[in-house]
C-alpha cells in the first residue's frame, strides 16, 4: 500500500491543478484550448477519485473514476471539438458583463466567502477534517466559477463548457462531503451527456456560419430585421 501521507500530498497537488484549470477556463479567449483544459480538469478529478480510493478503498470511487474518465475525458471533449470544427469558431472574445481580470478577482473573493460559510455549515459533521473540508470548499468554488463562465460568455458553446466545469465542481463536492450511491452519479453523467448533445446541436444553429442555416432563417423572415439594422 502507498503511504497515506503521500496520497494526501498528491491530492493537495491535484487541488492546485484544479484551481489552475478553472482560472484558465475563466480567463482564456481561445476556444480550442478551453476544451482540452476541460478534459485536463476532468482527468485531474479522475486522479483525485483514484487517490481517494486508495485511501478509503470504497469501490464507488473507483467506479466514479472509470465513468468520469470515459465520459468527461474522452466522449464529451471529443464531441465538442468535432462540433467546434464544424462551426469554425476559434475564439470567443465576447464577454457579457465581466472581463477575465474581474472574473478572476471575483472568484478569489468567492473562495474566501465559501470557506467561511462552510466552516459554519459543516460544523459537527465528519467532513470537518482538513483535507475533506478543502475538497468541499474547492468543489463549490469550482461550481461558482463555472457559473460565472456560463453567464459571462456569449457563445452557447462556451456556456456549455462553463456548465460542464460546474458539474465537475458538484462531483468534487460530492466526493469529499459524503458518499453518494453510485447509481446517482451515473444518472447525472447520462443527464449531462444528453444536455451537452442537445445544447451543442442547438448552438450549431446559433453560432454557425453555415450557409444553409441562414437560408432557413430567411425563409421565416427572421433575418430581414437584423439585416435592416446592420
Amino acid at each position, binding site marked *: 500500500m502507498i503511504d497515506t501521507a503521500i496520497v494526501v500530498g498528491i491530492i493537495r497537488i491535484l487541488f492546485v491543478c484544479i484551481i489552475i484549470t478553472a482560472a484558465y477556463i475563466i480567463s482564456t479567449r481561445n476556444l480550442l484550448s478551453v476544451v482540452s483544459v476541460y478534459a485536463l480538469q476532468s482527468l485531474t478529478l479522475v486522479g483525485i477519485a483514484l487517490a481517494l480510493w486508495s485511501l478509503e478503498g470504497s469501490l464507488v470511487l473507483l467506479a466514479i473514476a472509470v465513468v468520469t474518465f470515459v465520459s468527461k475525458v474522452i466522449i464529451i471533449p471529443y464531441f465538442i471539438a468535432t462540433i467546434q470544427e464544424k462551426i469554425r469558431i476559434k475564439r470567443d472574445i465576447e464577454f457579457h458583463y465581466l472581463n477575465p481580470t474581474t472574473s478572476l478577482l471575483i472568484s478569489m473573493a468567492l473562495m474566501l466567502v465559501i470557506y467561511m460559510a462552510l466552516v459554519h455549515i459543516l*460544523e459537527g459533521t465528519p467532513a470537518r477534517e482538513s483535507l475533506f473540508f478543502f475538497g468541499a470548499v474547492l468543489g463549490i468554488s469550482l461550481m461558482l466559477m463555472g457559473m460565472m463562465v456560463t453567464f459571462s460568455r456569449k457563445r452557447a458553446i462556451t456556456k456549455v463548457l462553463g*456548465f460542464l466545469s460546474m458539474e465537475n465542481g458538484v462531483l468534487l463536492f460530492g466526493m469529499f462531503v*459524503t458518499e453518494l450511491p453510485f447509481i446517482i452519479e451515473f*444518472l447525472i453523467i447520462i443527464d449531462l451527456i444528453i444536455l451537452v448533445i442537445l*445544447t451543442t446541436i*442547438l448552438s450549431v444553429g446559433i453560432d454557425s456560419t453555415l450557409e444553409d442555416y441562414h437560408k432557413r432563417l430567411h425563409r421565416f*423572415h427572421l433575418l430581414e430585421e437584423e439585416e435592416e439594422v446592420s
Partner: protein
Amino acid sequence: MILIAFMLVSVLSLIIIAATRNHRQMNTVCISQALLFATLAVYIALFQQVPVVSFLVGSQYFFIDHLGLFEVLIATIIFACAAVYARGYVEGLLESGELEKGSLKLFYVAWVLLLMVIVLAFLSDNLALFWIFAELTTIISAMLIAILSARENIDAAIKYIFVASVSMLFAFVGFIFLFEISRVYLGTGTLNWTVLMQHAAGFSPGMMIASFTLVFIGFAAKSGIFPFHTWLPEAHAKAPSAVSAILSGVLLNVGIYGIIRVYAIVHQTTAVATIAPMIAVFGILTIGIAALSMLPQKNLKKLVAFSSVENMGIMLVGLAISTPVALFWVLFHIMAHSLTKASLFFSAGILHRQFRSRFSSDAADEIRDVFRLQPLAAWGILLGGLAIIGMPPFPIFFSEFFIMLQLGAVSLEVLAVVLVLLFIAAAALGYFVLTSFTQVTEPGTPSDIIPYQTPVSMKVPIVILLALLVVIGITLPAGGMAFLNQIVMELKF
C-alpha cells in the same frame, strides 16, 4: 406493476410513432397515451390503497402517494387536452412551413417522452431520482421549444436550459447536504423521502437551512420564481401554443412540487422559522415583478406567461403561511391554475395564429375584429381571464380567497401589499382585453385580414377545460376535497 404499465404504454406509443409517417396517427397515439395514463391514475386513486409502495419489488426508489397521484392526474388531463389541440395546431404549422416535416416525428417522440418523464418524476420516492427526472423534463421540453428551429426559438430554449440546469445543480448540492444530514443522524445516508419524513424532526436545523436554500434555488428556477424567472416569458411565448400550455400547466408544477416535498421535511424542524419568511419574501417579490411586467405587455402569450409567474408567487406565499388550511388551498390553487392557464394558452394560441406579427413571436399582437374573426378564442380569453384573476364561480376565486384569509391572520400589512399587487395584475389583463378586443374595423371598409380557419380540434379543449373549471368551481366535489385533505395529512402539516 403499475409503474411497469406506465412504462409499457409509453414504449408502445414510441414504437407506433416510430413506425408511422402519418401526422394524424402520431397525434392519436399521443392522445391515447395521455388518456391511458389518466385512466391508470384514476384506477389507482379509486381501487388501490394509496400510498402504494409495493409495485416495484422491494424498491425504495418509487412510490405513489396522494400528492404524486394528484399531480399525475393534473398532468395527464392537460396532456390529453394539449394533444387534441396539437392535432389541428401542428397541422397548421406544417402547412405554413414553420415546422419541417422531418421534425414531426421528433416532436411527437419528445412529447411522449416528456409525459413519461414527468409521471416518473411525480412517482419518485428518492429525491435524487426526482432531481434527475426533473432535469430530463427541462431538456425534453427545451427540445419542444426549439423544434420550430427559428433563431429566436433556439435562443429561448438555450436560455431556458442554462438558467434551469445551472440552478438545478445548486439543488443537487442541496440534496448532497440533505444526504449528509441524514447520514449524521441515521448512520447511513438516504435521500428516500418517506424515510426522511419519518426522521425529519431530529435533523440539525443549521444544515437544513443551507440545504433547503440550495434546493430552493434549483426548483425556483424550474417554476419561474423571481429572480430566476427570466427564461419563462420568452420560452412560454415562443413555444408552439400546445407546448406553452404544457410548460405552464404541468412543468411549473414540477418545480413547485419539489419545493413542497422538501418544505414538508423542513416544516418538521425548527429551521422553518427562518425559511418560511424567506420564501414568503420571494413569493411576494415574484407576484410584484410579474404584476408590474404585465402592465405594459402588448403580446398576449407573454402576458399569459407573466400571469403564470404571478400565480407561482401566490403558491409560494400560501406555502410560507404553512398552516394546514393554507397548504390545502395551495394544492387546490395548483390544480385550478394549471387547468385555467392551459385553456388560456389554447385561446391565445388561436389568436396568435390569426394576429401574430410576421417578424417575431414576441412583438405586439395586432389584434382587430376579434369577435368577428375568432369568437370562440375571444370568449376563451375573456372567461379564462376572469378565471385567472379569481372571479367567482371559477375555482381560483376560492383558493385565492382562502389563502388571503390565512395571510390576513398572519399579517395584515403583507396582505394589503399582496392584494394591491394582485389587483395590478388583474388590471393589466383587463387593460389588454379592453384595448385590443375593442379594435373594430368600420363596416364597409375593406379588410385585408384573412380569417384563420380554426380546426375543431383546437376549439374542443378550450370548451372542455372551461366547462371543467365551472363544474369544479360550482360543486367543489367532496371526494376531491377529501383527497386534498389526505395530501395535507401525508405531508404532516
